């Protein structure tokens, strides 16, 4: 495959395998996670990792992009441990996670991003932090990631188009990242912005697009520091493929996929609620909250059920959609007293 440079270690085994983690590391992560987490007793879909036997999922086969993992990231990825809140549903294979993407900056067909992002270069990466925080400025990604230990979270991903996947992300809690910028008491919202680089992102050059780039997403600050909100810098035990949002992206599993913004270049702490890209493009169809909710219909897709991918033509893949994508025990309290039909 053109542009593909497998490391020698990848050639030995073409399959995805489970990487075993030492007892001490895993136990340490569980202890750290337990401090932050609420009781999970009622939710059968979420498996707590009390077993020292758990391993992280690692893809060892080929990749479809030219970007090598930056050397500074390699040891961090190697030390990633199983984290909390992982589902025990079977994960969507790497081949599908990395070749079926909504990333309109690289084209609107699901197969476009893997083609058009093949040579995307995200090294070095600068993250700009602005707004209501004490530590603002431009930061090098390597410096930002230094203090964060990485963990794996196997989350359900529910797209507003009524399909879903299960993805083993590698990353760390968004709350930990936010804390480092020391937002002040005026910071009520967090705004995220994708890289704007028409040279590298052909979708940003389209003449007839209804989207005003750069792509913008946002969260309420209490949503952003919720224990489930996650910054992913990898999946399947290795760095993020560009089509999945390299080098860092958001993962908010209780919201529709478009909230989980990719290739983040700027984070701003704001007093007022930011307008998000899809909201600006079509406010009748897309709201700020975009919580997964089977009872609130979308004008294009019924949200009562979803198709778990990869689909098979020869057996059913449709299942009922769960409130907050099955993460109600962790996030429902964020929305008590809110009319979720109006705040869709």
């Amino acid at each position, binding site marked *: 495959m053109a542009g593909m440079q497998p490391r020698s270690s990848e050639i030995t085994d073409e399959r995805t395998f489970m990487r075993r983690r030492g007892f001490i590391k895993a136990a340490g992560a569980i202890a750290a996670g337990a401090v932050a987490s609420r009781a999970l007793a009622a939710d059968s879909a979420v498996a707590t990792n009390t077993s020292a036997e758990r391993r992280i999922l690692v893809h060892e086969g080929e990749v479809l992009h030219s970007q090598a993992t930056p050397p500074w990231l390699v040891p961090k990825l190697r030390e990633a441990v199983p984290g909390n809140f992982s589902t025990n549903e079977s994960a969507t294979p790497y081949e599908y996670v990395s*070749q*079926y993407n909504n990333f309109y900056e690289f084209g609107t067909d699901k197969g476009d991003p893997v083609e058009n992002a093949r040579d995307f270069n995200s090294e070095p990466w600068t993250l700009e932090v602005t707004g209501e925080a004490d530590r603002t400025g431009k930061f090098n990604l390597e410096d930002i990631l230094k203090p964060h230990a990485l963990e794996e979270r196997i989350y359900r991903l529910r797209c507003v188009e009524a399909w879903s996947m299960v993805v083993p992300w590698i990353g760390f809690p968004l709350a930990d990242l936010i804390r480092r910028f020391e937002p002040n008491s005026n910071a009520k919202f967090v705004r995220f912005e994708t890289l704007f680089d028409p040279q590298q992102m052909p979708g940003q050059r*389209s*003449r007839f697009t209804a989207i005003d780039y750069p792509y913008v997403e946002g969260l309420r600050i209490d949503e952003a520091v919720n224990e489930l909100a996650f910054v992913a810098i990898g999946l399947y035990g290795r760095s993020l493929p560009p089509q999945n949002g390299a080098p860092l992206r958001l993962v908010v599993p209780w919201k529709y996929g478009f909230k989980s913004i990719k290739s983040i270049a700027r984070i701003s702490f704001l007093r007022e609620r930011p307008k998000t890209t899809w909201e600006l493009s079509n406010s009748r169809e897309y709201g700020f909250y975009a919580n997964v909710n089977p009872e609130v219909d979308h*004008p*294009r897709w019924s949200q009562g059920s979803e198709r778990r991918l*990869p689909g098979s*033509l020869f057996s059913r893949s449709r299942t009922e959609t769960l409130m907050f994508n099955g993460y109600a025990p962790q996030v429902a309290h964020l929305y008590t007293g809110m009319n979720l039909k109006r705040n869709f």
Partner: protein
Amino acid sequence: MGWLKPLTLVLGCLPISYCIWQVSRLYSGDAGILGADPAKAIVEFNGQWTLYFLLLTLSITPLRTIFGIPALVGIRRMLGLFTFFYASVHLLCYALLLLELRFGEILADLEKRPYISIGFAAYLLLIPLAVTSSNAMVRLLRKRWKRLHRLIYVISLLALVHLAWLTRSDYTEVVIYTLIVALLLLFRTLNRSWFERKLLMPFRRENPS
């Protein structure tokens, strides 16, 4: 041009044959052949070919005028029937593969999703055209047949709206297809004699005078 019809028949069957081949490969274990979402891929593929055959059907009249090939009219009916065929497959695959025959959700879609309502309207209008496509029907309906088959213009517009409403962000394709349909329809309203005399004579194969 006796070969025109058989050739059209063979070419028209190619897309669906390809689709069936892909499904059989998937069935025999080639998991990647239709991507992560085979159902959606098949629906989109057949939707695309419905549109292509619709555009081909519409282009017969302009083409035969421009190039002076009256025989082309002989394949117009077949192209129209292929349009209906691919639309049927498109609709069937939507109901069977995407919605997995959850009739409650299909009815809700037809009612609440404008792009599906309009696509369905287009499909309903194709039915009388397919039913009255035989020579016997042409004879039976005479003048009314021509009027009835002008529905194809309405269907084209509905198809464009279907496409526009299912588009989420990038309207490039919609713009291109709208221009093509506009051109094909405009041709029919232009002053043909001027068009033919000034522009098309040089291209003519059979000069009528």
